[in-house]
């Protein structure tokens, strides 16, 4: 009799999946990185190396200040302290391996085979220590899934191409901050509010971009405390507050002694003086600027205020909904909504910031495989102009195909019925009985294929056909507008889903508790 999977095979299949994910990461890292061989400024790879150089050579108080030894115009440190500490640690190891890699000034623009290896390994170690275990834990804590489903789900989540290409191709350490956020989400969904808020605080101290996720965390925690009885709720709120403040104080300790020092760090982290968006981003402002040249009639401050106002306004619906009806499901949806609103409307957005909405969308994959696959593919596509510059087009294309196949094999992401669980369809089937259900099905499916074909076509054009000389930015702008229209649609979709989701079970259970 062929036996049914034993303990060994369970462990074995999981290991195989993880090894495969690591393999894909490493093979992508064999490609070029941003700014490879492009003096004088190079790219993000050089930025991270430069931070290692600065943090290992200068005293901690000078890290964020312009000085004779620290030229902030050359990739000055503009990430919160936890990144700086991480860079210091990496820098120390680099110094131990080869002092040339971090010597002050002399090492600027240093590139070599061994150094690339070292940098790639440093990303891989961060990923293996923080992000991959978080993903595995998330998948294996889903109670209703069988073992095979859990393994397939973790494999699919680990193969999301956007994160792999940016971290291992372009070169950044996103998996650390996203991993910490994921740890926080896991902790919150298992009622470890204190640990969760500390983990999220760490993510925030690693990369200020995690602020995109801050609102749902705040509303969820507050809403949860609100639901409890007065005394208990207040007590848990205090605990959360203490844990947040303590984590913050712990990470920022060296910078809290002096007010100027602290303000300088904050000023570096939030560069309000920079433009509304960098390069061509698929957000609302960048797409609007194609039609309306608002820079001509609006001041910098005015723009800043406009961004702030629209972002806050956009945050209201999902936040209020989460605040008054907090649940695990709504929390994940609110994470998507809040980060999408930030991405679309806030100030100083990078194209890589799309990874922040992508993380909670990944978490929704098992329940909404179709729309999540669509979103994640377009999210990867939206970074194409950047990836073309880095020479990562082939790797992007292949990993995207791999991801779509993995989703299809593991979760039936493409072939599943997109109308299941879609609030619009449920509403229409109740209120518009004359409208056949199939209409939605075919409309969404054909929309999906048309959208992917369009993306493929646009991508090919941008690689193969040189843009007309009068419009050098034609392809990046078209890609941005194309992706932006998708993101606006997804924002609306996820808002509707969040607002219409009712966790009947949970609320009912809580109601009975309250009446007791």
């Amino acid at each position, binding site marked *: *009799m*062929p*036996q*049914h*999977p034993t303990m*060994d*095979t369970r462990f*074995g*299949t999981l*290991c*195989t999946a993880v*090894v*495969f994910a*690591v*393999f*894909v990461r*490493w*093979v*992508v890292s*064999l*490609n070029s990185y941003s700014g490879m061989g492009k003096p004088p400024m190079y790219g993000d790879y050089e930025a991270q190396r430069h931070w290692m150089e600065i943090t290992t050579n200068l005293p901690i108080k000078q890290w964020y200040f312009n000085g004779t030894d620290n030229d902030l115009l050359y990739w000055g440190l503009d990430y919160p302290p936890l990144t700086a500490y991480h860079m210091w640690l990496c820098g120390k190891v680099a110094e131990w391996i080869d002092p040339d890699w971090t010597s002050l000034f002399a090492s600027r623009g240093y590139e070599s*085979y*061994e150094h*690339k*290896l070292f940098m790639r390994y440093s990303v*891989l170690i961060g990923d293996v220590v923080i992000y991959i275990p978080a993903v595995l834990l998330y998948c294996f804590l889903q109670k209703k899934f069988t073992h095979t489903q859990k393994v397939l789900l973790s494999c699919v989540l680990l193969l999301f191409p956007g994160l792999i290409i940016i971290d291992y191709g372009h070169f950044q350490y996103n998996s650390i901050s996203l991993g910490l956020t994921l740890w926080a989400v896991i902790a919150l969904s298992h009622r470890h509010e204190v640990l969760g808020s500390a983990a999220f605080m760490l993510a925030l101290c690693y990369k200020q971009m995690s602020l995109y996720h801050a609102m749902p965390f705040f509303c969820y925690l507050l809403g949860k405390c609100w639901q409890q009885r007065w005394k208990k709720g207040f007590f848990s709120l205090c605990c959360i507050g203490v844990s947040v403040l303590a984590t913050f104080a712990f990470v920022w300790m060296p910078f809290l002694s002096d007010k100027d020092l602290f303000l300088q760090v904050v000023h570096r982290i939030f560069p309000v003086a920079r433009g509304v968006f960098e390069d061509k981003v698929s957000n609302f402002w960048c797409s609007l600027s194609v039609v309306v040249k608002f820079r001509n009639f609006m001041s910098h401050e005015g723009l800043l205020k406009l961004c702030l106002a629209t972002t806050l306004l956009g945050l209201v619906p999902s936040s209020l909904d989460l605040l008054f009806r907090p649940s695990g499901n709504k929390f994940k949806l609110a994470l998507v909504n809040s980060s999408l609103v930030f991405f679309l409307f806030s100030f100083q957005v990078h194209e890589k910031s799309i990874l922040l909405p992508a993380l909670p969308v990944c978490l929704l994959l098992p329940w909404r495989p179709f729309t999540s696959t669509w979103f994640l593919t377009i999210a990867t596509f939206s970074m194409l102009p950047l990836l073309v510059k880095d020479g990562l087009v*082939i*790797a992007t294309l*292949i*990993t995207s*195909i*791999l991801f779509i*196949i993995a989703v299809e*094999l593991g979760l039936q992401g493409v072939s599943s019925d997109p109308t299941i669980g879609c609030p619009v369809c449920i509403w229409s089937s109740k209120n518009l009985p004359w409208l056949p259900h199939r209409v939605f099905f075919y409309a969404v499916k054909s929309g999906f294929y048309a959208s992917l074909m369009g993306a493929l076509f646009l991508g090919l054009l941008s690689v193969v056909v040189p843009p007309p000389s009068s419009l050098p930015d034609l392809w990046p702008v078209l890609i941005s507008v194309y992706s932006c229209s998708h993101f606006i649609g997804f924002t609306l979709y996820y808002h509707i889903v969040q607002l219409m989701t009712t966790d009947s079970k949970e609320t009912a259970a809580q109601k009975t508790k309250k009446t007791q």
Partner: protein
Amino acid sequence: MAAPMYFSVVVTVTIVKLLLIPSYRSTDFEVHRNWLAITHSRPVSQWYYEDTSEWTLDYPPMFAWFEFLLSRIAKLFDPAMLEVTNLNYASFATVLFQRLSVIVSDFVLVYAVYECCQCVQVLCCFRCCQCVQLVGKKKSPHLLSQPMFVLAVLLLWNFGLLIVDHIHFQYNGFLTGLKLLSIARILQRRHLEGAFWFSLLLNFKHIYLYIAPAYFIFLLRSYCFTRSNRDGRVQWTSLSLMNLFGLGVVVLEVFAISFGPFIAMGQLGQVLSRLFPVKRGLVHAYWAPNFWALYNIADKAATAVAVRAKLLSADDITKATMTGGLVQEYTHNALPTITPLVTVILTLAAMMPALVHLWRRPCTPRDFLRCLVLCAFSSFLFGYHVHEKAIILIIIPLSLLAVESRQDGQVFLLLSTCGHLSLFPLLFTQAETPSKVCLMLMFSLFAFMSLGVLHSSSKKRPYCLPLLSPLETAYTVGLVFLQLYCSLGHHTLGLTTRLPFLPLMLTSVYCAVGVMWSWLKFYLITLTDMQHLKQS
């Protein structure tokens, strides 16, 4: 196996191959680029005389024609790679074209594996009954317990093929495809087609001469002689001249098309001298894990003892010994030096029992496969100047047997693990270390899991890997420590300058032990298999 499942295995492995495009390339990349250039820009009469590059054409004519065809397409990618004088040319388009040519030609392998998977249904009738039973119970069998799925993954995801073809750079996948196709045809009892594909294969790469004796004996025994006696011996009167003639025509035709033009031009001697260079040494720079690795290490030990005991003076020791086998010409000191003739005799002697065994039975496809594996084993173990890559020749046909019977599965697990590990030194660049470790881990994990499930038995030994005995388990775990020492420990201990070749030597000697053990075990299984008596 359902076609969609097979399709997904193919697509994922193709994606892995595409991802490997930016990996390190060995000099074989330049070798094949040069052959593209030769076949494109020189007339056929010059192909085997051209020597601008040191990498002269040394594959049989069919492969040259294959390169000729490729060069027609290469022109569209980058014509500069087709100039003979453009040595070490590797533009992005060149790399892309060459890598893609390997990936596309691998679809021969994909087709052949599909055919083999269909044949396994015949071979594993016993297991299939079980599958049918399970299906009958409306309980879909676990993927790992479907022999055809397991076989497809074992062949298509074969670690050796992946790293040798898609990192190191060669066309083994395509050639292995031809080999598996001929095996599949023979398993389907379409002997003439099998013979055709195999003779074609021989004209692509002559290394497959290693397994030719098995084909020769099998086709003679089971195609030319049509009947057996009751005890399984051949019935001499049943010789079918028709079949013999047909077989001869098919084989000679292929050889005539391939070598004919060169014989007509009077270049046969030149072609053969390119195909069989005799100036190489007994072992490759890195010792393949075979008998000669053990022989060499014994010679080193004996020399050391002899020098201590003053039987040999230090002056007698040739320099090559001291550099640890880096120089190709290798002279033994304490033990007798081995000439090519000795290796040929030893190889044939090692094959002989298997061939005689095959002859004396009513040849079943299983017997043929076993004999094929044993021929490949003998040539690998005792051959002259054997490359470590030749281990693929053994592992691939053994995979077919491994899904079918438990005993073969045991040999397969041990041999594939140590054989594949012995390929690690092929990729010496640091950036490839994680790639090869991950691929190896994936393949081995899958092999152990799936064969463990396929051949699971009720009495499971604790603390042992699936199917392996405690001793073999210890050996396999030892491989992990060996690899750790070679990649980390040796450098940390600071022995890199003093004993630079120690890791390589340790790897090949340690793996040689495993390969020899698998060979002996497999021989024992083959010779004691009495299934034909039960059948008759």
